[in-house]
């Protein structure tokens, strides 16, 4: 049985909820604000992860790359794609303290998408493997979205 306090778990859940809310509201600045200044984000297919193949769908391995991810979505791609609404559903699976105020958290996710025509389908499913640092505001030090969906059903604009 976990000896991690309810207070810590609530803090962990709060940053996860901020993350998925930022994406479901297409607020990329709010998405960036869930990372600390050492933050990194990787979205990778489970097939690659299992076979030690490093190619990712998104590989933001430093904070500057996270900032550039915001630029991709809000400036480079603006007006070129058919927009879609996502709904993220998550379930925290395990939490492990790995350092002072730092936790490794595994969370299942399931993301539905609804394009402009209105038919809802599954976008991807998988798990997050995160390092979260608690402080005044809990933040991601690293976030890895591993996708069971090795063949995604469409192009992906927003982070997973």
């Amino acid at each position, binding site marked *: 049985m976990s000896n991690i306090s309810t207070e810590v778990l609530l803090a962990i859940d709060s940053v996860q909820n901020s993350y998925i809310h930022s994406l479901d509201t297409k607020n990329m600045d709010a998405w960036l604000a869930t990372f600390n200044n050492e933050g990194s984000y990787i979205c990778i297919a489970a097939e690659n992860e299992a076979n030690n193949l490093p190619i990712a769908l998104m590989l933001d391995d430093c904070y500057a790359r996270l900032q550039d991810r915001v630029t991709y979505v809000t400036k480079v791609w603006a007006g*070129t794609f058919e927009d879609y609404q996502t709904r993220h559903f998550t379930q925290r699976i395990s939490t492990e303290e790995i350092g002072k105020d730092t936790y490794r958290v595994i969370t299942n996710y399931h993301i539905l998408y609804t394009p402009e025509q209105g038919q809802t389908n599954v976008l991807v499913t998988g798990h997050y493997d995160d390092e979260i640092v608690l402080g005044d505001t809990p933040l991601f030090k690293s976030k890895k979205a591993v996708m069971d969906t090795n063949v*995604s059903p469409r192009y992906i604009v927003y982070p997973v």
Partner: protein
Amino acid sequence: MNAPESTYTQVAWPAKVNEIPKDIFDREDVYQLELEKIFYGPEWHAVAHAGEIPNPGDFKTINVGERPILVVRGDDGEIRTFYNACSHRGNLLETRVTGNAAEFECPYHRWLFDTRGALRGAPGDEDFSPSFCKEEMGVPTIRSTEYLGLIFVTCSDKTPDIETYLGRTKDALAITLNGDGRLKLLGYQKVLYDVNWKAYADNDGYHAPLLHAAFKLLNWQGGEGEQYGTENGHIGFESELKVPEDTGFLNDPSLLHFKGTESSKGSAIASIFPVTVITKHMDMINIRFAFPRGVGSTEVHYGYFAHVDDDEEMVRHRIRQSSNMLGPTGLVSMEDASIFSRIHRGNHTPGNVAFQKGVKHEDRIWYDFKQNDEAGNLPRWEHYRKSMGFNREEA
């Protein structure tokens, strides 16, 4: 009795060579004929690169058209290609996408095959038919060849040798595969586009500076180059590699650095009919294996590679660049993916599409183009039309 082919595959093909009928993108009867005439006809299809299966026992499964294929590096180091079906009752032999195997066992009746495809054992064979011959019951093979490590297969014995088949696109292909094709797999991005395979393969040179805003925002000008077609539907692009100057637009411009040494023809695309595309942009080596999933869907596997002689820094750079620039989430290619879906739905309207950019003639096909001409796709369409047996209307 089946209806004669001509009664169910009639297509009104326009007289002008730059016009394409839209109904070929959504007709089930046309798609079925494409499987027969093109995917199972006299064409080579890239199914793997040797760098994906470097070790004995490594295998990969993929489709040619709708036929499942198994590519295996045997215990003797030789790469062989098979139809992915048990030689007994046709059960799919291997369900995994990639892996390493010492043998392949069909679970249905426990027939066992080695990595060279030979049948090693079949339970109860003392009661088999009089003509059963174990030596003749290996996994069914499909004709194959290798060029710069690329493994091609064909369902036809009429397909010419690979060098004749590739023709001039051998030049572009050599650039994309880093000269010698000695590659190491870095991983995949895989996606299912809701687009007919022909529209996916019809991506052109005209759109690049217009659709992809990144080129403008980064002040990234394309280098001088050329585009050419072949009579059998391949397209080659070869151009000077131009590296964008740091305009401050990106916080991490290192993503756009070029660490290679050759830039006079540093960018190339080999688009091999019907649906394989191999590209080399900046330091990204990318093979796009693709196959139709029915008339309105195309599955694309973007395979990314390093060169076997790369040092650790170069490999790391290729990983960062490849993971962020190309594919269904890439900085300069996500927009292509969004266009695939839109063009497929738009192609359900009646009439013809008409190519314009770079069209010098409307009554004959030619083979040399400027790199931003969309007319470069016309030799491919002519090969498609002839392969399918569609006659042009009178002018």
